[in-house]
């Protein structure tokens, strides 16, 4: 609705813009008035860049995402198909140790492990992202409603969160996937997402409540700002920082959870490659073909570690107390 803007009130006297005010106060000189305004986000980014571990995490995440996204373009051609097998050749190509032909070796089904790890990264990152997306959507809505409306809504939502938090995470994820009938990635997303929302809701609620105490929120209300404006312009942007950290860490946790479920045979189903599934297959080859166990494990470890380090770095970078 494009309403014609009203005239700015009280435009009584034409005051020279930019010139000295009628009160004859010259603008104050500010020592650091050189250069453009430094945004908080810019500051955070600068602090993040100084944290070597966090940068390493970021780079690793980026590499993994890149590999996962671009996999279809080159992996099957150069490394071998992660799923398809030529059964007449398979026996002779089975369980090859790492070599120039197969950088990380082959599995029992003669498939290239490097290829499967890259496709496994795709599954892991997808599960991580979607599951965290689901928990963010539910958690944000629940948290915002609880914090902003308070009262009975707050009680109901927080009790519900308590109920979900009372369930041990791994156990309940396994039970939930078991009930829903394992084998579908959707169920894995849903289970992890459904179990993760209380954490998000709690943090966001706490964060909103804390931000709401700031006087600039009062200031906006005193100006007559509407509730959505206050929520989206003032509260959300300032309350989101801890969530960014939590969500980053949660991706790591979700990847671990997916790996555990796949390891137990309830996650991503073979022949689709997944890291947990590969480890499950590797169990019998701890001595005869240790590379089966080593590389997918390293894949999980490094990727989750990357998210953890990134989360750590973000926490430090976004911590307002650490400014100055």
């Amino acid at each position, binding site marked *: 609705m494009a*309403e014609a*803007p*009203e*005239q*700015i*009130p*009280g435009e009584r006297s034409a*005051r020279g*813009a*930019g*010139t*000295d*005010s*009628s*009160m004859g*106060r*010259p*603008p*104050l000189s*500010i020592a*650091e*008035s050189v250069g*453009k*305004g*430094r*945004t*908080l986000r810019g*500051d955070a980014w600068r602090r993040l860049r100084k944290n070597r571990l966090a940068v390493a995490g970021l780079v690793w995440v980026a590499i993994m995402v890149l590999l996962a996204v671009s996999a279809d373009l080159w992996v099957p051609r150069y490394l071998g198909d992660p799923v398809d097998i030529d059964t007449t050749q398979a026996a002779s190509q089975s369980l090859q140790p790492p070599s120039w032909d197969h950088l990380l070796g082959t599995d029992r089904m003669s498939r290239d492990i490097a290829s499967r790890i890259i496709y496994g990264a795709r599954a892991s990152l997808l599960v991580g992202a979607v599951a965290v997306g689901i928990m963010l959507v539910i958690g944000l809505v629940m948290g915002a409603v609880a914090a902003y409306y308070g009262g009975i809504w707050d*009680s109901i939502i927080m009790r519900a969160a308590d109920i979900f938090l009372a369930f041990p995470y791994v156990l309940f994820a396994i039970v939930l996937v078991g009930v829903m009938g394992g084998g579908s990635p959707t169920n894995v997303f849903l289970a992890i997402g459904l179990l993760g929302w209380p954490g998000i809701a709690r943090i966001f609620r706490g964060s909103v409540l804390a931000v709401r105490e*700031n*006087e*600039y929120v*009062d*200031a*906006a*209300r*005193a*100006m*007559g*700002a*509407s509730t959505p*404006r206050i929520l989206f*312009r*003032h509260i959300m*942007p*300032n309350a989101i920082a801890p969530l960014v950290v939590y969500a980053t860490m949660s991706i790591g946790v979700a990847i671990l959870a997916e790996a555990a479920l796949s390891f137990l045979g309830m996650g991503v189903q073979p022949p689709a490659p997944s890291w947990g599934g590969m480890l499950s297959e590797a169990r019998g080859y701890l001595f005869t073909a240790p590379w089966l166990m080593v590389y997918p494990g390293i894949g999980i470890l490094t990727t989750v570690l990357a998210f953890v380090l990134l989360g750590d770095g973000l926490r430090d970078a976004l911590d*307002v107390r650490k*400014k100055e």
Partner: protein
Amino acid sequence: MAALLQVEGLTKHFRVGQGVILSHMNKTVKAVDDVSFAVEQGETLGLVGESGCGKSTTGRCINRLLEATSGKIEFEGVDVRRLRGKRLRVYRRDVQFIFQDPYASLNPRMTFGEIMAEPLVIHGFGTRREREQRCKEMLAVVGLSPEHIHRYPHEFSGGQRQRVGIARSLMLRPKMIVCDEPVSALDVSIQAQIINLLDELQKEFGLTYLFIAHDLAVVRHICDRVAVMYLGKIVELGGRQEVYSSPHHPYTESLLSAAPVPDPQKQRARSRIILRGDVPDPMYPPTGCRFHTRCPIARFPICSEEEPPLRSVASGHETACHFAKAFPISAGRMTSGDAHQQDPFGGFDGRPGGNLGDFS
């Protein structure tokens, strides 16, 4: 002519949660209890008192940041407490707020320009360019460079931020501004700059201020009339001159006496009243006169039994003390030496003369 702002019997209760699931066990704190005053067009009314006396709550109730429990607030004859929707927004355009903490009152993720333009955006004034123009002008008015429009609050000192806070409150050309301790977070030299700025802006724009502060000197400097609050009540209300030079309420007098002056010679010569004990817990205010537990002259049962009403003691000068007239000011006055003899360390048990006084 009616006053610009008329407050009558304003009361604000806070519930302090203790209940398990239901809130029926909650306690009530009477933060503001039956407060009445008026603010005339163009004047500055000071609201002064110690922490927890309800002065800020009063300011927030007037601006509808808090909903009053009862009482009447009229602005230009309109009942403010009934305003809803658009009319509330119009009211808020007319009555602006300046906050105490220049760090917390500016959204750290918005530039000065965005912060200042926000009132215009909310009320739908001007085009983007016009708004920017206006922000630049207003930055100049409060003594900052117009180039700062793209800068963020964290790059600036408290004083500079407070200028932006003031500029923001002026964007809509309000009729009245509620200033909630606008200078108490600032250093002396900066405080003086801001006080002068407020002074000048009032003249320039014909503003009316409700000025809330705990610093007696600042209030005396900037206000035309002063209301002294204690435990949610106004205990004395009058012109600046009258209240400061001839206070009628023992609390006002104690307060003035307790605040030292930056002049050693004068300070040595001043008489001192050292009040006993602490301010009682507002959840359990004393009966009768709320000040009687600490009052240097409360010697009569009436003090603990009957609540003194705000009575006129001179033209435009009211006070809420049973003995405001019976005791000349000097009679209630004690030197510090006297205080020691009577009660060496200020009587911390808080039960003077066996009067009750349930505080802890």
